[in-house]
């Protein structure tokens, strides 16, 4: 009984860390700085979506004993499998570069050393962890550090809470600091940053690494709801902070370091370093998850040996793919593009690809062959379809606009 409560606690902690990453930090920060509270609604929509998805994927793997990638290959065939695979590899390689950049910037804020120089060392550090560390270490280590996110809430309180004049922006965002095109771009990016398919691949593989069964469904549900809600609170807190501190100063939060100012105002040096810690911990956790998610996807889809609890020699192709994928992300990162912009771009691309990434999943979640009596309820299906359509439409409209007008 005690063991189950420990597992639930760990799961919640992991989910808090899993919600925040370079993508959600970038979108929340820019959203608050540019549009006040005008994007809070989409953060809430995205939170509902990810809660539903995480609960679904845990339920799927616990009951069917299959991971998501395995199920796509077996149920839809090789040709179809190539579609979500291609979209994953493209979007996640950019996202991984952004996460590595986020870690580098966090270290840069601590040391003053240029993040370009730190970047290759950070990549090496990530590689060493995924090369040898066990699954438990990877899942729990960064997550515990991520609890520092709660300091964002303390900062809002210290600043006197949300000022009354900001409240109308909840339903009527001001377009003084950004255009409608920027707004739509952030809507798409917020959805893509929060509803990241890499989490599906990671969680379903993790559920297999930890041998979940039908008995784990309670743990799964609590983790999904409580954990993701807490994570969402962290994201919203950052948005509010940016709205309270940065918007009046005309700072548009287009680099990650600028967000530190929002924490420095109430808490000084401690505040700025707390922000850097959150950036470090959440991007670290996300980088590990992204690398593993893509490697899991490829190894499982092609039927190779896989697993973090196996030695590299026992799952050679899995580990080789992991290494190559990291190298690709490093190459992207070395182009020098600011990690915040990379994060926004990756998130919007993810948003555009969401129908490809997630519709196989929705179909599987309604297949009694895999789930027996535990298939989706109608509400869940309708909610998910609406969100997918929203994400796709907004991304379709905003991506070309942003590219034409020169980026956000």
């Amino acid at each position, binding site marked *: 009984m005690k063991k189950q409560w420990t597992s639930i606690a760990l799961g919640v902690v992991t989910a808090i860390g899993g919600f925040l990453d370079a993508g959600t930090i970038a979108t929340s920060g820019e959203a608050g700085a540019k549009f006040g509270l005008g994007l809070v609604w989409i953060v809430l929509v995205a939170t509902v979506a990810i809660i539903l998805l995480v609960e679904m994927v845990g339920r799927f793997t616990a009951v069917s004993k299959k991971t998501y990638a395995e199920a796509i290959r077996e149920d839809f065939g090789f040709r179809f499998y190539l579609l979500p695979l291609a979209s994953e590899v493209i979007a996640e390689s950019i996202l991984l570069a952004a996460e590595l950049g986020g870690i580098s910037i966090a270290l840069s804020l601590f040391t003053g050393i240029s993040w370009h120089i730190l970047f290759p060392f950070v990549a090496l550090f990530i590689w060493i962890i995924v090369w040898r560390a066990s699954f438990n270490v990877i899942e729990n280590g960064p997550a515990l550090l991520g609890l520092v996110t709660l300091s964002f809430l303390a900062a809002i309180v210290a600043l006197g809470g949300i000022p009354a004049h900001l409240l109308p922006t909840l339903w009527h965002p001001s377009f003084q600091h950004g255009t409608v*095109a920027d707004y739509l771009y952030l809507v798409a990016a917020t959805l893509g940053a929060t509803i990241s398919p890499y989490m599906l691949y990671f969680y379903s593989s993790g559920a297999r690494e930890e041998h979940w069964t039908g008995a784990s469904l309670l743990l799964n549900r609590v983790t999904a709801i409580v954990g993701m809600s807490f994570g969402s609170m962290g994201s919203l807190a950052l948005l509010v902070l940016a709205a309270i501190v940065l918007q009046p100063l005309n700072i548009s939060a287009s*680099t990650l*370091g600028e967000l530190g100012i929002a924490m420095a105002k109430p808490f000084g040096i401690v505040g700025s370093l707390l922000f850097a810690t959150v950036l470090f911990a959440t991007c670290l956790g996300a980088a590990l998850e992204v690398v593993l998610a893509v490697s899991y996807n490829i190894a499982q889809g092609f039927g190779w040996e896989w697993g973090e609890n196996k030695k590299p020699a026992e799952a050679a192709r899995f580990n080789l793919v992991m290494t190559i994928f990291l190298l690709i992300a490093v190459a992207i990162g070395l182009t020098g593009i600011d990690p915040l912009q990379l994060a926004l771009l990756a998130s919007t691309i993810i948003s555009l690809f969401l129908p490809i990434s997630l519709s196989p999943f929705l179909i599987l979640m309604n297949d009694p062959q895999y789930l027996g009596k535990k298939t989706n309820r109608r509400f869940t299906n309708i909610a998910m379809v609406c969100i997918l359509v929203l994400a796709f439409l907004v991304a379709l409209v905003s991506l070309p606009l942003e590219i034409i007008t020169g980026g956000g």
Partner: protein
Amino acid sequence: MWQKAGTCIGLLLLLSILAGCTVTESAFARTTGNAGSAFAAAMTTLAYEHEGKLTYAFAVSSFADFQSELTGTDQALLAQGAANTRTGRQLLALYTPAMQVIDAPCLSNACDWRAQDALLQRASQAFLEAGNT
């Protein structure tokens, strides 16, 4: 509930268009808007470092980012025809000394950081105003 969200977006877009807001902005407005925000962030970072709210390392790191963000703004403005307008020429004139501050910010007490701060503020305000008109 989701239909409500969809209607909200539609109404919002309609309102914006009716209110005369443009969906996108000109390249010039975007360049000046971004530069103005970056100068504002630099100004705040410099002030906070001297007020003891940010560490030296944090400020160094931040200014390196501002530098990469702002380098080339003058080229972009020139390409957008800034030399031909009075506003454009004013911005270019403010840009050069402001960039000198960005490249070499005064983070100790051995130099006049307040003068630098004032410079950044003037540049920020001018760029932001140019972007809004």
